[in-house]
């Protein structure tokens, strides 16, 4: 049975008769609230892979599945406790990763699986309008492990029309120092053609982020949110198998500073236009001390065909300047202090557009009472560097 199947069985065993909407009684027993299953298939292609120094195939596929289950209970002081358990599994294949060691028939990184469980708890005091939460997260794949800890606090205004939220998050990451085969001491790859037999040194990467946001109801149709983040990263911030070719055709791995400070500032607004159309907008300005400045604009317009069916076309525009350390294939000088040919840090614009389709029938999707919502979404992404991708996602909500 798959992980998803096991988890679905688990929450089904906790499931009870849907709780009655009663303000006079709140269960102090742990009860099932909802479960969400999200599955996605992503594919991309392009000709600027960082593994091969800014040239070569960027072909990649990723099949992602995650499930989160929420349980709730009320304590003696009528505070609501929520417990969220989430498990995600990604399986990806990457043509460029196969070039870390092209001598192997199939290197360890050409395909990999990432597993990322997380646990979150929060307690909401409706009388005071406060919520406090904490969470733990883990992620593991062949060459990358991560542990995360997060805390958050929210406070509503007296009239319950505004809410201030503060969040703090720490990620402690460790990555295997896997060099391209020709740069390894002795020039050897996995002796038996299988990199998994190798013992690699490791490098650390730590990320600390703080986030402040304020949401405000403007009137019965409009609400807005302001978000300001501050992120500090420290440690090994490149990837050891990203090649850089210099003007003289010599090769090395990318070299980036061991610190980075990022400041993203965001604004969101949702407006109910008439009876059937909703406008959801998002704008973000981003700057960091590597020289990347970016603007993101996103507009989505859910249209309610009827109370149980909506269609949501969306469009996202993104533009960024290049990092100070980026140069294309064979453009870097040997005297450069830092260097990368990773096109994710180049100057480019991107367009992302598509549509979503969502049904929430009163008797459940396909007549299954507990299957509350089905949402399907497709998007196409193009980047001015030539990279393009497609993604299709399915979200099922069980209540």
């Amino acid at each position, binding site marked *: 049975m798959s992980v998803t199947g096991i988890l679905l069985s688990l929450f089904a065993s906790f499931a009870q008769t849907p709780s009655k909407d009663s303000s006079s009684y709140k269960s102090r027993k742990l009860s099932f609230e909802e479960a*969400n299953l999200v599955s*996605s298939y*992503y594919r*991309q292609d392009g000709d600027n892979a960082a593994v091969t120094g800014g040239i070569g195939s960027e072909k990649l596929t990723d099949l*992602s599945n995650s499930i989160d289950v929420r349980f709730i209970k009320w304590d003696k002081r009528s505070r609501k406790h929520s417990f969220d358990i989430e498990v995600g599994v990604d399986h990806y294949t990457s043509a460029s990763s196969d070039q870390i060691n092209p001598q192997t028939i199939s290197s360890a990184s050409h395909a990999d699986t*990432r597993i990322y469980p997380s646990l979150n708890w929060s307690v909401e005091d409706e009388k005071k309008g406060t919520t406090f939460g904490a969470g733990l*997260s883990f*992620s593991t794949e062949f060459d990358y492990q*991560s542990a*995360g800890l997060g805390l958050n606090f929210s406070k509503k205004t007296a009239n*319950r*029309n505004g809410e201030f939220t503060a969040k703090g998050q720490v*990620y402690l*990451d460790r990555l295997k120092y896997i060099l391209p085969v020709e740069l390894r001491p002795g020039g050897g790859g996995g002796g038996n053609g299988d990199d998994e037999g190798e013992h690699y040194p490791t490098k650390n990467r730590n*990320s600390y*982020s703080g*986030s402040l946001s304020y*949401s405000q*109801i*403007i*009137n*019965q*149709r409009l*609400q807005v949110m*302001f978000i*300001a*983040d501050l*992120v500090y*990263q420290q440690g090994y911030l490149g990837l050891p198998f990203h090649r850089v070719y210099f003007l003289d055709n010599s090769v090395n791995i990318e070299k980036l500073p061991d610190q980075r400070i*990022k400041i*993203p*500032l*965001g*604004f*969101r607004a*949702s407006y*109910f236009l008439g009876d059937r159309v*909703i406008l*959801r907008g*998002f704008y*973000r*300005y*981003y*700057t960091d001390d590597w020289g990347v*400045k970016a603007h*993101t604009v996103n507009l989505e317009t*859910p249209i309610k065909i009827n109370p149980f069916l909506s269609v949501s076309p969306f469009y996202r525009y*993104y533009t*960024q300047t290049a990092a100070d350390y980026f140069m294309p294939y064979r453009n870097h000088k040997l005297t450069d202090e830092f260097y990368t040919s990773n096109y*994710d*840090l180049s100057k480019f614009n*991107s367009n992302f557009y598509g549509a*979503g389709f969502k049904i*929430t029938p009163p008797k459940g999707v396909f007549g299954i009472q507990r299957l509350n919502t089905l*949402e399907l*979404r497709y998007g196409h992404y193009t*980047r001015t560097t030539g*990279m393009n991708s497609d*993604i299709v*996602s399915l979200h099922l909500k069980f209540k």
Partner: protein
Amino acid sequence: MKKNKIPGIFLSSFPLTLMLVLFSCTPVKEYQKSMLNDSEMVLGAKKVEKTEMSFQTYREGASGANGGKTGGGCGCN
């Protein structure tokens, strides 16, 4: 040194926009929030956008301010 005027305009107008927004608020009672409570009105990314946000974090230099990851936890930027 590179200069970018757009952020300056944005940053200087940010407090003004915030004040204008807050002063134009009309108090809304709980029973008047039917439209605001619609699931499509949520001020944040939807569950179905989860993987989209991940690949954008990998494929773009910028991240954060959208409720998702701001760095760390994966081999992304």
